[in-house]
């Protein structure tokens, strides 16, 4: 009798727990874009330093990703998912360069709530050298998990 009551009570308890956890509506709390994450470093000191002014415009685009903003560290650079390369005009402290990326893209399911995004594998980065001195690739795989992908020395 006692054990039977325990079974029934345990069942009711499990039901209540399931009600509690199953009625949470599905919402997406994750980043749904995979950005290339670029950190800025001073060539002279080798230390991380955000530019005083940063402008980033995709070649062929009318709108800027960043427009004369200071203190951006790191810069989150979106890649074109319908192509295998894309280029940006990057202006650091008023001096312009062009930076280009070659990469592969593939679909990745983030979650049921957030849906799909594109992940990328970075192949090559090159740029003009007006203010940019060196670009190092630190992490080739570009995901929505905020890993540093490249270091830009200027």
């Amino acid at each position, binding site marked *: 009798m006692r054990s039977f009551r325990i*079974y029934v009570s345990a069942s009711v308890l499990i*039901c209540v727990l399931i009600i509690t956890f199953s009625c949470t509506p599905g919402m997406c709390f994750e980043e749904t874009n995979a950005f290339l994450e670029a950190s800025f470093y001073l060539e002279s000191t080798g230390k991380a330093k955000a530019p005083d002014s940063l402008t980033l415009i995709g070649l062929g685009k009318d709108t800027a990703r960043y427009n004369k903003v200071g203190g951006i560290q790191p810069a989150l650079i979106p890649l074109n*998912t319908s192509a295998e390369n894309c280029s940006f005009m990057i202006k650091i402290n008023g001096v312009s360069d062009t930076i280009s990326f070659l990469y592969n893209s593939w679909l990745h399911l983030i979650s049921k709530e957030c849906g799909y995004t594109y992940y990328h594998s970075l192949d090559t980065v090159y740029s003009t050298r007006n203010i940019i001195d060196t670009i190092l690739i630190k992490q080739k795989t570009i995901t929505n998990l905020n890993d540093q992908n490249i270091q830009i020395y200027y």
Partner: protein
Amino acid sequence: MIRIYRYIISFLLILILLPDALIAQEQATEEIPDTVTVPLKIRTGVEISGPVIYLTGKKILNAEGYVSVDLNEKLGVYFGAGYSDYKYSQYNYDYLNKGIFFRTGIDINFLKPQVAMGKYWAGMGIRYGISFFTSETSTLTHENYWGKTITSLSPETGMGHFLELSPGFRAELFNNFSIGWSLSLRRLLYPGTKKDIRPLYIPGFGSAGESFSAGIGYFITWNIPFKKLRVVIKPEEPEEPLEEDELSPDSGVETESQSLGGRRPAIQPRIR
């Protein structure tokens, strides 16, 4: 909201079915025979909430049935199969999944034979499940700085498998006709497809986003008795009267009453 109704219904089922089982339990405790005859049965049942939910406009069809055979008064082997048709739409994609699933394992009845009498079952199922499905994302939209990309993922077949614990309750309402419910607590062993495009749903398991899923099923079952088993009931051993030393919480400690040479009154408050 439908989920809430399902849980409320399950709670009501407990309340409805509980008195019968308790009466049986009481009868069993009143008369304590040495043996009890338990009918072993083949059970075949269908899950009823899946089709009902589908008819109320949900985009998920889950049809499921099972057969179980009693091995003895405690154990039974279980085999279940089902079909699932799952559709899901989110703001940036439409997803379809169709497939079949099979479950097999054992059912353990925790009730004593003189309580269960082949009519009541309260216990746990331990099962292995395997699922074969086709998964498709018919439209998919992705938007970022460079614009909008619209694409799709063509149908892919997959196979997933999982383990399941299924505690539940079942009672015979009429002659050889039972209803009951069971919870399903499942652990995904393998989702069946590649890492980046894993399925959202696995038939028989549920949402594949997590490695753990839970659900509840309501079953109508037809029971076919095929054999009678005479089970010896172990009489509950009467509790041995405690020794006088054990009655005293501070036995072994010299007290004033003990110092009287055991000439204590039958009822005497302890004197300190």
